[in-house]
């Protein structure tokens, strides 16, 4: 691998995405992408006593299910890169504590899934591993509890607020295989345009997505039209529109091939999810379920996946801090 341009890594021994798995909650199961997910849960607890435990279980089962689908013995997974939104990433570490897979916990807020894909690819290209698994999870109820209000509280959500996706996505990267391949990884820089409204994450993260998108295109010398699809993680309806317009001002037209996982996963009119989905699992499940399927069926041949994250917590919001955004991109081709 080598660094090209400002901040993009170009892989030479291309890591293959061997297989993926995704498990989602009941709300996502009602959404338009339901048929692409491996398992849809009937309730948010999944037989556990707390939402945190449920989230750990979702992550754990997703990881095991991905390993099972790939037909690899679990002992051949060299490392696991995983993260989530709960304090100190407990969903990932608790979920995988009995797995015996060497564990590298990562945090990139909702961009964690792609951060994992990028880091895992570096491990594989650098011969540090033959197979790695990258996973990320989030849970609507545990996220609401940590970041907003108790679920039973009778309040109204603003129209720009997003709905945290319940679920987990996992992908196995391998040094040998026939694709889809991860060809480039562009880690983003932190971009803060001063948005303070925690109910408008799309607007807070859109400038970071724009920065990573343009940097990636400049570093690789590609045009937006090179990709069959450019997909962001969880900008939602508000952030998606902002990104399209911001890109236009910089001279890039992404209208025709751009979409967002947060827009894809829910039906805005039927599901009352306001500005769309968010959370680590938004990008994780949509990629592991829907996008990977599209790649396998060759409906998409080249995609640019840009996962976006809002690097804040509830204390920083209460202290009046603005929300720094980040976006990591991986280019995936067959």
């Amino acid at each position, binding site marked *: 691998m080598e660094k090209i341009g400002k901040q993009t890594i170009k892989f030479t021994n291309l890591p293959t995405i061997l297989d993926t798995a995704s498990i989602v909650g009941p709300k996502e199961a009602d959404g338009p992408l339901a048929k692409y997910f491996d398992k849809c849960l009937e309730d948010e607890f999944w037989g556990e*006593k*707390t*939402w*945190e435990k449920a989230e750990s279980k979702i992550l754990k089962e997703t990881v095991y299910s991905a390993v099972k689908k790939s037909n690899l013995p679990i002992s051949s997974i060299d490392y696991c890169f995983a993260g989530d939104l709960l304090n100190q990433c407990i969903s990932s570490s608790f979920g995988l504590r009995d797995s015996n897979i060497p564990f590298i916990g990562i945090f990139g807020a909702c961009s964690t899934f792609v951060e994992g894909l990028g880091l895992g690819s570096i491990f594989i290209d650098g011969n540090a591993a033959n197979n790695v698994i990258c996973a990320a999870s989030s849970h609507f109820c545990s996220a609401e*509890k940590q970041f907003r*209000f*108790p*679920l*039973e*509280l*009778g*309040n*109204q*959500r*603003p*129209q*720009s607020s997003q709905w945290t996706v319940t679920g987990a996505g996992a992908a196995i990267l391998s040094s040998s295989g026939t694709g889809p391949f991860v060809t480039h990884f562009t880690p983003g820089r932190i971009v803060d*345009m*001063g*948005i303070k409204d925690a109910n*408008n994450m799309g*607007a807070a993260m859109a*400038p970071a997505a724009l920065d990573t998108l343009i940097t990636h295109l400049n570093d690789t010398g590609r045009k937006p039209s090179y990709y069959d699809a450019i997909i962001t993680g969880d900008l939602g309806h*508000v952030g998606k*529109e*902002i990104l399209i*317009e*911001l890109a*236009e*001002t*910089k001279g890039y037209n992404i209208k025709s091939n751009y979409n967002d996982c947060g827009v894809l996963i829910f039906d805005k009119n039927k599901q009352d999810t306001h*500005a769309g989905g968010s959370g680590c699992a938004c990008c994780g499940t949509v990629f592991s379920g829907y996008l990977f399927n599209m790649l396998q069926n060759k409906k998409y041949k080249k995609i640019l996946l840009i996962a976006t994250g809002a690097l804040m917590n509830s204390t920083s919001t209460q202290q009046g801090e*603005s929300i720094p955004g980040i976006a990591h991109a991986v280019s995936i081709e067959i």
Partner: protein
Amino acid sequence: MKPIETQKKYQEYVDKKSPNSPILKNCFNAFWVGGLICTIGQIIMQICKTRGLDEATSGTIVSIILITLSAFLTSLNIFNKIGKFAGAGSLVPITGFANSIVAPSIEYKSEGYVMGVGSKMFTIAGPVLVFGICSSIIVGILYFIFNTTGITLS
């Protein structure tokens, strides 16, 4: 459109792009649901009075019944739906106050009765209590001062 370079310009742009809440619809729903809750309270009050209870006791009974009802509906996962529909209409009457105490109690039960229910019960209602009590003390002091100097408020 020009590229957006400053934070201030971006904020202005975002304000324009972000969808607004349907204020008219929200106000209308808040108005009739809030009115309905208060009417129910008034009906209970009248019943109490016709049974021969005095004003103060009747008021207490109204509060008790509305609080119990709200707590019960909260535990059945119904009150949050009413709250989502009616907004301030169900929040401002005493029903909203009960909901704001019961909701975190349910949510944090998983952290135990002391550090969970006990310490988180007032996370939402706490500020209302603190500032409510503070302002009542200030009003009390003012009343005391004016009252002793010969000016009565009534």
